[in-house]
């Protein structure tokens, strides 16, 4: 790893950063999809009628069981079999988003169940419907409780976006490998650079979540147990 190789990787940093922006776009897409579906399935699993509860746990089991790389390839290659090709990016958002939704559902389920049962009873006693109680009383509390677990999921899926390389998404790992393919001695410096970029991103993301957690904390409430 001579200095000249590091300098060449440094010169290609704009290309790597451009790749990283694709990872961030992927992250935004898959976290949003996972968040929306995750809440739906968490609520179904905790408060839904029995058949839906069963369906929700089946869903979580399914998408937590299939290896991600396999899920990615299935979503990518599957639809085109029926004449509906989708791009690698779309496939990655859907596959990784569905997978993330299964994990996020479990995070929110745990948080919902951590809210004392009396809260639901009290909300119902005040005349709220079950759905209103979930929306206005239980979910806001559950969100606060789920932040730590959610930060964990964020850190995991951020790195998962590099898997999209396998379905032809031109993201940061693609560019790192390209540098190595063009000039093999650059391989290791390029990989180390990408690792450093992810260290920075994870730090920034988790710090932000830490700030949110602090802002949302209600002194005395969480410590009551």
């Amino acid at each position, binding site marked *: 790893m001579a200095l000249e190789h590091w300098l060449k990787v440094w010169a290609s940093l704009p*290309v790597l950063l451009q790749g990283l922006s694709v990872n961030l776009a992927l992250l935004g897409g898959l976290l949003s999809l996972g968040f929306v*579906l995750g809440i*739906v399935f968490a609520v179904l699993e905790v408060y839904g009628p029995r058949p839906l509860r069963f369906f929700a746990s089946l869903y979580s089991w399914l998408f937590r069981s299939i290896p991600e790389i396999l899920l990615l*390839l299935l979503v990518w290659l599957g639809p085109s079999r029926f004449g509906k090709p989708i791009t690698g990016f779309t496939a990655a958002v859907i596959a990784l988003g569905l997978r993330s939704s299964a994990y996020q559902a479990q995070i929110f389920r745990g948080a919902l169940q951590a809210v004392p049962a009396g809260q639901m009873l009290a909300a119902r006693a005040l005349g709220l419907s079950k759905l209103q109680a979930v929306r206005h009383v239980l979910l806001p509390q559950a969100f606060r409780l789920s932040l730590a677990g959610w930060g964990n999921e964020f850190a995991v899926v951020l790195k998962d976006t590099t898997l999209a390389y396998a379905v032809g998404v031109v993201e940061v790992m693609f560019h790192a*490998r390209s540098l*190595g*393919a063009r000039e093999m001695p650059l*391989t290791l410096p390029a990989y180390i650079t990408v690792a450093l970029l992810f260290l920075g991103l994870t730090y920034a993301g988790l710090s932000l979540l830490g700030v949110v957690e602090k802002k949302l904390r209600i002194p005395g409430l969480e410590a009551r147990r």
Partner: protein
Amino acid sequence: MRNMGVAVAVVLLCWAGLAAEKFIVGSDIAWPPFEWVSAKGDYLGFDLDVMRMIAVLEGYEIEIQAIAFDSIIPAVIAGQIDIGASGFTITAERAQVVDFSSPYWVSDQMVLVRADSGLNIITALMPGKKVGAQRGTTGAFWVEDNLIAQGVAVELVLYETYPEAIMDLLAGRIHAVIQDQAPSEQAVRQYPGQLLIAGIIKTYEEFGFLVAKGDPKKILPRIERGMQKLRETGAWDNLVSAYFGNPLEVIEAAWEACISILTVERDPVRYAACLAAKVQELRK
């Protein structure tokens, strides 16, 4: 919340927009000089330029998609992409699942070893030796068919990309790497004094462009016609002289200087002439 989920799903599904007369070309863009990503992030290489030139000559658009080598044929079969252009050797096994163009290149396999290993082509491929190759390549198939199947118990170690195999060879975990001639020579050039060509295996492999079985979109006749025109006009020879045996930085600089002739002025013949002349000029 639920409405937002529906909106997200709808947006995602709408992204699969299609233009008319546009073919998607899949390539593992990590195999210079046939295809690689330049320092500035452009896709270039012999295969890709041939695809671009034929597209201009035959009046269709192409979009080049980067795909891992062993995913290209599955993607062509699935209809995900239309053309595979990635230095594919025409083999009977592959010809059962896809259709090939006529051969456009002939290559042999090369065996690389570490310069200080003292191995030659015989000792590097003896029983017990670890031989590296890229997954899904004919180099890997050659080791399986001509060594392992014949009872020569070498250990075949497979890698996702060719550079990874070379890294492992340099790290001392394997004894040799088998790969096509041009990329092997490229690797030796990049590690002067560290890698050595142990020998050439005369496999006389022919490369072809590939499309889905039965060629449902009728692409092959157009590729054939395009290759014919390139050969008749001398553009083919110019392209060969530009891409083979030259340092990648030189080719990249020449490509950057000339590519607008192809993409803007849409003149493949003049583009190839420009590329060859510029490479010559820059080498001096």
